[in-house]
């Protein structure tokens, strides 16, 4: 028996709950948002406030082969190179950046790390780690049940999402993600009735026994010890906020529906299984976004140093990038190329799923901004020049799409800065050392 499960048997009416709270004297609960309803066309709440912009990251391992992913010309109306051909149907929802690099300065070129860390933090070796999703989530993810959701399709718990020393571990099982988001604690925003759960009320109230100690405990800690415990208290606050939100009547959301459960593939490195689970994750995450459960998602198709492989093969994707001979007739490694194309096909699955959610005249993808990035420019040499990066979605109308832009050797941090400004993060510069930039891709920003 779980403590709150014990209450599942007798749900309390709102009136009773309020009476009970007054009797208990120690419990407070925010008033439900009774007045929040969608407008008639489904693009905004009744008070005219637009549906929130959402953010996502999508990481694939081992970059691309130079000359085989870039369009022949920049601008609009471009065609992706062969390795990214699966993205062609989404060209008008995409911005593709070529010629970006991670400036290493005096830092070691940590293979398979410097690249993705550069893309997510604006530095190959950040003095204090705060990945871009955590920065964005502090702005757009504070009023949702989950500040962010992380998934890994390759069976690992690896995640690029990190603030401080501890990474936000990924969910590697679609079934587990489903249970987490759409399990008993899910409150359907479109349900006719809403009753706060008395177990949630007690949980929220009881956490004050912990938060009240914060000041006294922190006083006892040295500066070096504070970071971990400080993160703990921040997480307790997040838990409190999560409970606050669960105690409020959620606003109805047109596109929200509880998804059906799917049959997941065994979490692991087999790329066909990763592809299956990517599809399931895409569906659950899209529903979670459409149902207002989170505004930030992080999808890892594989670890940066990708161990994806095919059943029955002794070689992994990573091993192919180093050990497979270049086929001189095409100019790239044939097997590694097959993996890469499959990665982009999986990305197309996610984009197609998001685009399939209609919200008024637009789609869920329209109010998203997803950054696609990787760990190396060219895996064969661990190079971090010409890092392929992409963005998808219009961030709720704040970003133009459909462009291929040649950054001509600029830092990857320019993409991160553009993303932050498009999503309302108040910052004028981003990155460290030679990656520091104050130049977003202004040509993509809508006024």
């Amino acid at each position: 028996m779980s403590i709150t499960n014990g209450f599942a048997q007798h749900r309390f009416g709102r009136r009773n709950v309020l009476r009970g709270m007054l009797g208990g004297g120690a419990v407070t609960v925010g008033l439900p948002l009774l007045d929040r309803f969608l407008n008639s066309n489904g693009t905004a709440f009744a008070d005219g406030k637009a549906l929130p912009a959402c953010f996502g990251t999508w990481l694939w391992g081992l970059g691309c082969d130079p000359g085989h992913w870039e369009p022949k010309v920049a601008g609009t109306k471009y065609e992706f190179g062969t390795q990214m051909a699966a993205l062609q149907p989404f060209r008008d929802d995409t911005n593709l950046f070529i010629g970006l690099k991670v400036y290493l300065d005096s830092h070691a070129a940590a293979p398979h790390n410097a690249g993705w860390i550069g893309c997510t933090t604006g530095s190959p070796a950040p003095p204090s780690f705060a990945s871009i999703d955590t920065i964005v989530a502090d702005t757009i993810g504070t009023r949702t049940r989950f500040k962010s959701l992380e998934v890994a399709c390759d069976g690992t718990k690896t995640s690029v999402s990190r603030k401080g020393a501890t990474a936000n571990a990924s969910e590697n099982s679609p079934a587990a993600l489903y249970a987490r988001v759409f399990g008993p604690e899910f409150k359907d925003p479109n349900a006719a009735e809403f009753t706060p759960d008395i177990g949630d009320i007690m949980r929220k109230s009881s956490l004050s026994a912990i938060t009240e100690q914060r000041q006294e405990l922190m006083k006892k800690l040295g500066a070096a010890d504070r970071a971990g415990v400080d993160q703990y208290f921040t997480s307790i606050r997040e838990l409190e906020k999560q409970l606050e939100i669960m105690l409020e009547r959620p606003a109805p959301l047109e596109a929200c529906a509880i998804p059906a459960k799917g049959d997941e593939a065994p979490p692991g490195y087999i790329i066909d299984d990763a592809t299956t689970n990517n599809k399931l994750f895409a569906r659950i995450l899209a529903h979670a976004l459409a149902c207002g459960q989170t505004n930030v998602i992080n999808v890892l198709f594989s670890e940066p140093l990708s161990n994806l492989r095919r059943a029955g093969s002794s070689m992994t994707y990573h091993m192919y990038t180093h050990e497979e001979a270049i086929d001189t007739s095409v100019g790239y490694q044939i097997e590694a190329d097959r993996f890469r194309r499959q990665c982009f096909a999986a990305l197309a699955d996610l984009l197609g799923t998001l685009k399939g959610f209609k919200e008024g005249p637009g789609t869920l993808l329209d109010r998203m901004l997803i950054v696609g990035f990787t760990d190396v420019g060219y895996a064969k040499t661990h190079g971090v020049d010409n890092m392929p990066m992409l963005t998808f979605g219009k961030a709720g109308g704040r970003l133009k799409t459909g462009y291929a832009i040649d950054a001509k050797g600029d830092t990857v941090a320019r993409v991160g800065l553009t993303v932050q400004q498009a999503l309302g993060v108040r910052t004028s510069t981003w990155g460290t050392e030679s990656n520091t930039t104050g130049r977003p891709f202004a040509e993509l920003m809508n006024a």
Partner: protein
Amino acid sequence: MVLRWRAAAIVALGALTVLGSGPAGSASEAETSAVMGPGPLVQRRLSPEQYRQIISDVFGPFITFGGRFEPDVREGGLLAIGSGKVGITAKGMEEYDGMARNIAGQVVSEKNRGTLIPCTPADAKTADNACATKFLGQAGRLLFRRPLTDGELRAQVRVANDAATLSKNFYTGLGVSLAVMLEAPQFLFHMQTSEPDPSSKGQYRLDAYSKASQLSFFLWNSSPDDELLTAAEKGELSTQKGLTRQVDRLLTSPRLEGGVRAFFVDMLGYDTFINLSKDAQIYPNFTAPVTRDAQEQTLLTILDVVLQQRGDYRDVFTTRRTFLTPVLGSIYGVKLPKTSPNSVADPWRAYEYAEGDPRSGILTHASFVALHSHPGRSSPTLRGKALRQFVLCQRVPDPPGNVDFTVIQDTNNPNFKTARERVTAHMTTPACAGCHKLMDPMGLSLENFDGGGGFRKIENGANIDTSGELDGKKFTDSVGLGRAVHDNPSAASCLVNRVSTYALGRTVTRGEAAWVSDLQKTFATVGYRIPDLLRKVALSDELYRVSAP
């Protein structure tokens, strides 16, 4: 020390000091802090195993866990050091919250409350201050590893009473409060506090309760039991006699095995087993039970050498005696008839390989040769790297950036039939050779073992050459490798380094280097016997000295 008042029946390191013994080119893995005096207080997050062990110790082994723990971080070669650097993320807190409610629900359930709660409320439909105070005070002492302060206890009882009033159920209220306790930082972190050391003016030491925790997590991988907390309460841990009595008690307890096991799980990097998978078509016998049993085989072998036989630690690299199950036997080619029903795991059986058999020492176990291989083939490089990293405490640098691997392309090349031929290409390429010479020659001597741990003599039709070298010592096969590791001074010094930093939960300072050096000498003097080393560490002032706040 199970929290059970009515039914007592239910139970309750870097080569920093490899100082010059590492081979040229290999970097010392653990760092030494530049601090000249003792190190700082460390606030360590409980490891998953410690969390489970404490709950089992306090409430009983029947409690189940429904959640996932935050991933640990390895620093200075150990998760135990990384645990002092990490916090808890929002998702991690969600998981701890779910687990806490689940555990608390089991404790206050109708089934268990009679044995786990030391009192009965006057009216189960409302709050009962006295009973809540009694239970929460007693449970809190074991969970927080010290008595609760008056303020803490008041806050916990208030939560219990409020929730009992709201729910009209005393036990629900108690459960809500217990869940909060299980989510508190005082439970989830080993929170150390210091006090001035009366015997050394201006110096600081852990206070008595922090000292008790330092000791019990080191030797038992769990929180202090009632007797140790009582000794702390009475000031006995501040006297040499009192401390010695407790150390000897902990060392002779059956729970020492759990502590030593946890140390080796950390030292040997067994956390990576979670991501181990083998290709089912290439290694059809390498199933989930094999993964489970592989690490257990090595742990049982180590425990047999170092605890049951009180032997020389270095013998773990040469012993032919081990423990097997039928599923492991299928990997090793040892026929062990299954004696239990299909749904029940077979008991472990002691097994000794014949003299000269290549399976000698833990480096030939599947827990090493399969763990440090690719999913579908062996890897002399990964094995050599793991040997340097986990056994000799030496760090092999990362491969350089912008290196062209063309020279070793084409695994289908008929000239590259064996792993030796493939990695030789690495070792003859200047950009690669520096590091690969530190790894490959040792790994190649294990090439008789494929990526799934099975034995083979031939690869792609070519005979396998298992000759190798470790720091200038040449050998012809895996038996020779085991002997070379046994005799390599880095193996023993690595163990001492790991034990000392594991106990401290941080890297040693420069000021503590002399202590570690002394431990190295002691370890040799006592015949490399681990229990003697543990005793020496546990009785050291250095384990409890801390810098000024």
